């Protein structure tokens, strides 16, 4: 009897928005200290929303674990960043009389730490994820990941991005082959060439942009730029296609014992989410800003009306009879408000819909094998994902 488990998704926009906004507010009020709690709570929500076979995933990480990991990382990284940046700036100006080399070298120096942080963060995330009570896990292997990532990135940059699918597959295989569910090990089957098909639209679009631009420059006729513009639109669609297709091919290539996956994401849906989401966010933002400006205008107008204009003034603050610091405070408040709103809206309109789509199109095949999966030991892993928390690794959950 071959059993298949479809995945349903339980996340809803409203509750997620409220959670994201509330936790972001606390984070700002605590000057960033609450962010460990914020991330943990959002992860709990996102994980429990995904329900393969109706049973939810569970995130069991704790905020204090993250905090401890972060503090550990700070002790090490503060030294590295403080001293190394300073020395690099010195050498950059001594030898090259410019600060560009310093920034470039600083970047290069941080790359290994960056990859280190990536792998360890994934290890922590998997170690604290459970499904049906059974833990996931990632074997230690960070050294191998760091040098592989470094070399692959170098190759990708040298080939101007053409070998991006190769890097994607190689790193995904390295991670997947060391990933466990209970006592069963995952395996990434397939070859990197299988991903070329997923990248085809990106290649074609970039070629069109390059050709169009070149033709416009050589023939000095701007009409060719239209081709480049069309290439731009194609590129946007092509990236959505890559995201969907690469996910499908990589997921369908994964095995857990005799179990596997079937995955049918729709590139059109992915693109629609990004496009629609961006428009929705911009629209809401514009509306909120408009309301805030109107409100501010009304308040200031009331204040101006009550002031004697003949007395003369040096600046708007004097006119309104308010100290300058109040204006700065309002400015700072608006700045933070924008960040809070933007973060929460991004969760609601982009991150969650994408997660939902990928979850709902994924099916586990051969699920009768689950009976044989046994529990694995807890991975204590004190450093948690401290380095990833300390370095700016970009958004995401």
């Amino acid at each position, binding site marked *: 009897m071959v059993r298949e488990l479809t995945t349903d998704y339980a996340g809803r926009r409203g509750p997620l928005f409220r959670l994201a906004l509330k936790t972001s507010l606390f984070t700002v009020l605590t000057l*960033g200290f609450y962010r460990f709690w914020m991330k943990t709570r959002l992860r*709990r929500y996102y994980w429990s929303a995904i329900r393969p076979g109706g*049973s939810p995933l569970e995130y069991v990480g704790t905020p204090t674990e993250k905090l401890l990991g972060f503090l550990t990382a700070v*002790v090490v990284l503060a030294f590295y960043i*403080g001293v190394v940046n300073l020395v690099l*700036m010195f050498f950059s100006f001594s030898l090259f009389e410019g*600060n560009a080399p310093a920034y470039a070298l600083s970047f290069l120096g941080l790359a290994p730490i960056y990859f280190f942080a990536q792998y360890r963060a994934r290890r922590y995330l998997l170690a604290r994820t*459970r499904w049906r009570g059974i833990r996931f896990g990632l074997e230690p292997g960070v050294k191998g990941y760091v040098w592989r990532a470094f070399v692959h990135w170098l190759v990708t940059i040298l080939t101007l991005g053409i070998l991006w699918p190769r890097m994607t597959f190689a790193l995904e295989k390295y991670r997947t082959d060391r990933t466990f569910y209970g006592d069963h090990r995952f395996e990434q089957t397939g070859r990197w060439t299988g991903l070329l098909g997923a990248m085809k639209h990106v290649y074609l679009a970039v070629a069109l942009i390059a050709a169009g631009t070149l033709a416009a420059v050589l023939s000095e006729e701007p009409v060719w730029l239209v081709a480049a513009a069309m290439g731009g639109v194609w590129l946007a669609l092509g990236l959505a296609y890559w995201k969907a297709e690469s996910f499908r091919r990589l997921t369908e290539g994964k095995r857990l014992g005799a179990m596997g996956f079937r995955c049918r994401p729709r590139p059109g849906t992915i693109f629609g989410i990004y496009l629609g989401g961006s428009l929705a966010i911009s629209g809401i933002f514009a509306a909120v800003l408009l309301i805030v400006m109107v409100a501010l205008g009304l308040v200031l107008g009331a204040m101006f009306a009550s002031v004697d204009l003949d007395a003369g003034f040096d600046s708007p603050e004097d006119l309104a009879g308010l100290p300058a610091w109040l204006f700065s405070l309002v400015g700072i408040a608006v700045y*933070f408000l924008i960040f809070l709103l933007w973060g929460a809206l991004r969760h609601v309109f982009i991150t969650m819909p994408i997660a939902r789509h990928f979850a709902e199109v994924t099916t586990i095949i051969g699920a009768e094998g689950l009976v*044989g999966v046994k529990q694995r030991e807890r991975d204590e892993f004190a450093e948690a994902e401290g380095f990833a928390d300390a370095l700016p690794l970009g958004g995401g959950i």
Partner: protein
Amino acid sequence: MSAFEAFADFFDGASANRRRVGLRLDVEALVLGLPEGVPLRWPLADLRARPDQADPGRMVLSLAEDPVARLVLSDADLIARIRAAAPALKRRPPVAHKGRIAGWALGAVASVVLIIFVLVPTMADQLARWLPPEGERALGDATFEQIRNALGRESFVPVDVCEAPEGLVALEAMAARLNAGDDLPYPLRLTVLDDDLVNAFALPGGRIVIFRGLLDEALGPNEVAAVLAHEIGHVVGRDPTRDALRLAGSVGVLGLIFGDFAGGTVVLVLANELINASYSQKAETGADDYAHELLTEAGLPPAALGTFFERLRDEYGDAEGIEAHLSSHPQMTARIEAALQAQAAADSAGRLGPPALDDDQWQALRSICGPAEHQPVEFPEDAMPPSHSPDDARDRLGTSKTEKSK
């Protein structure tokens, strides 16, 4: 055989197998009826509900001492009754490793403090000395261009450099009078920028920038000479270079701590200002002391530094309290007193000579950016600047302000 009230999914945490169990809520426990064998009893006091779940219609229960077993129920009625009956659903396990967290927190704070306030400044000091002059000039030039662009204000044109030949000659003459030659690691480059700002500063590599606003505010060449001497003090101490290097070190570390939380950059900037300020106050006092010496050597009155600041204080206010800590300049009162003390010492040693520039040179300097905006102020032949009351200063400055408003 008591009937079950509802069914739920049970995961025993030993295998990934899902079991359907019957549930019954007893007085003291939740009873799980397993398909095979003895029913499990989960005491109500030990029931914990997993937090922040996406589906409000489901409850995921765990047992206090058992970290892996899970019970997932969706029967609304039973969920409500469990919520009412179980006393500790929301209790979290006590924070593990409290000692370790405290220890590492202390370590992190100590590490950061040590690095920002000791290691980085020390290294910046040392490295500033070793930086070859061409490198410093490059650093200074890069910063200079940035500043010119930043001050462009409404237009996107960078602020003009004032280059009237007679003015430049006068400026060089003033620098020559001060005669800092031997102390300087590289030759000075003096520049006047055409802006209202009443300020002057030194950049790495020996470039000193004076704003036209400062020339307009000064009552006589001795005051400009005093400011120039102060800035030369910065150049001699290589303060700008040390600042730039120190900034490179600190900013990275601060970014690390505050992370990329929403709007973190604002806090970053504020924190950096704070660190900047305490470090710079020492440098400012040092530059003041050097200026007093340089002025005395050249036969010029150190008090000029004091009176200039006094007028600026009357006009712009002193930085008291918190602002004093944030501003990089030591409170002006302290500076004025120091200047007057140096003056007294110079007086008693009889070391004062003629003013820094003669009438023609002073006029040339004031017109370096174009024709001077208001009548020159006569000053007496001896070197002492005219005594004045704050009211005189305010009147004079009041007129010039409206003239300057564009």
